[in-house]
C-alpha cells in the first residue's frame, strides 16, 4: 500500500516533472527576491525613523507576508496533500496569537 505510482509512461512523466520542478524553482526564486525586498523595506522604515504608530503595523504585515512566502513556496504548502499540516499549523498559529495577545494586555494591567 505504500507504493504510489506516478504515471503510466515514465518518460512523459519525467519530462513533465522536470519542467514542473523548474517552473516551481522560478517561483521560489521570485519569492526569495520579494523576501529580500521586503526585508529592505522593513529596515528602511526603521532607519527612516517613522512613528511607532505607522511603523509597527507595516513591519508586522511585512513579516506576515514573508512567512506566507516561506510556508507556501519554500515549504511547499501550496502543494496538495498539505491540508492536515496546514490545519495544525494554523491552529498552532491561532493559539500563538491568543497567547501573545494575552501577554500584551493582561500581564501588565
Amino acid at each position, binding site marked *: 500500500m505504500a507504493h504510489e505510482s*506516478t504515471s503510466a509512461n515514465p518518460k512523459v512523466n519525467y519530462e513533465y516533472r522536470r519542467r514542473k520542478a523548474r517552473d516551481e524553482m522560478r517561483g521560489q526564486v521570485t519569492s*526569495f527576491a520579494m523576501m529580500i525586498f521586503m526585508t529592505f523595506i522593513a529596515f528602511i522604515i526603521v532607519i527612516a525613523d517613522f512613528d511607532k504608530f505607522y511603523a509597527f503595523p507595516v513591519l508586522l504585515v511585512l513579516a506576515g507576508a514573508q*512567512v506566507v512566502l516561506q510556508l507556501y513556496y519554500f515549504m511547499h504548502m501550496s502543494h496538495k496533500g*498539505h491540508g492536515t499540516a496546514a490545519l495544525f499549523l494554523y491552529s498552532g498559529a491561532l493559539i500563538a496569537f491568543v497567547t501573545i495577545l494575552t501577554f500584551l494586555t493582561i500581564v501588565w494591567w
Partner: protein
Amino acid sequence: MDMNQKYTARTWPESPEKTTLEGKNKFLGFWLFLGGETVLFASLFATYLALKDKVPGNDHALAADMFELPLVFIMTMLLLTSSLTSVYAMYHMKNHNYQKMQTWLLITVFLGLAFLGFEIYEFNHYVHEFHHTFTSSAFGSAFYTLVGFHGAHVVVGLGWFTLLLVRNGKRGLNLYNAPKFFTASLYWHFIDVVWVFIFTVVYLMGMVG
C-alpha cells in the same frame, strides 16, 4: 519494499519524501511538530514582549540602546539566503541529482555557521559593552532565552544536516533517506520563519519603540 533500492532520475518518484509509509508518517509528524513549535516560540515571544526593557535600575541598557541594524541585517540576509539554498537542495533532491543536493546543503550549512558566528559576536558585544547579560535583568533573561532558543535551533539544524550528509555521503539518494533530507530542510525553513519574527519584533520594533 526494499529501502535501499537504487533509483535513477527517471525511476525516482515525484514526491520521494512521501512515497513510503515511513516517509509519509515522518512528513506529517514533522509538520505537526512544527505546529507545536509555533506555540513554543509564541510563548517565548510573549514572555519577551512582557519583559522587554524591564530592568532593575536606570543604569541598565535598554533594547533601543543596544541593537545595531547593520548586524541584524547581515544576519537576516545570511539566514534568508540559506533558506533559498536549501530550497535549491530540495530541487535537486526531487530531480535525483545527489551531488548538487549535497553541494547546496553544504552551502546552507556554511551560511548557517556564519549566522551563528555573528550571533555569538552579537551576544558577546552586549555582554561586554552594555553588561546586558542573562542574569542582569528580567529583560536580559527574556532576550537571551528567546534569541538563544532560536540559536539552539540553528545549531540543531546544522548538526542534523551535517549528520545526514556524513551518513549518506557515499550511498546516494534512496527512499529511506529522502524523507530525512526533506524534513531537515523543512526544519531549516521553520527556523527562518522564526527569525523573520525575531528580527521584526525584537530588533526592528525594539529600535522603533
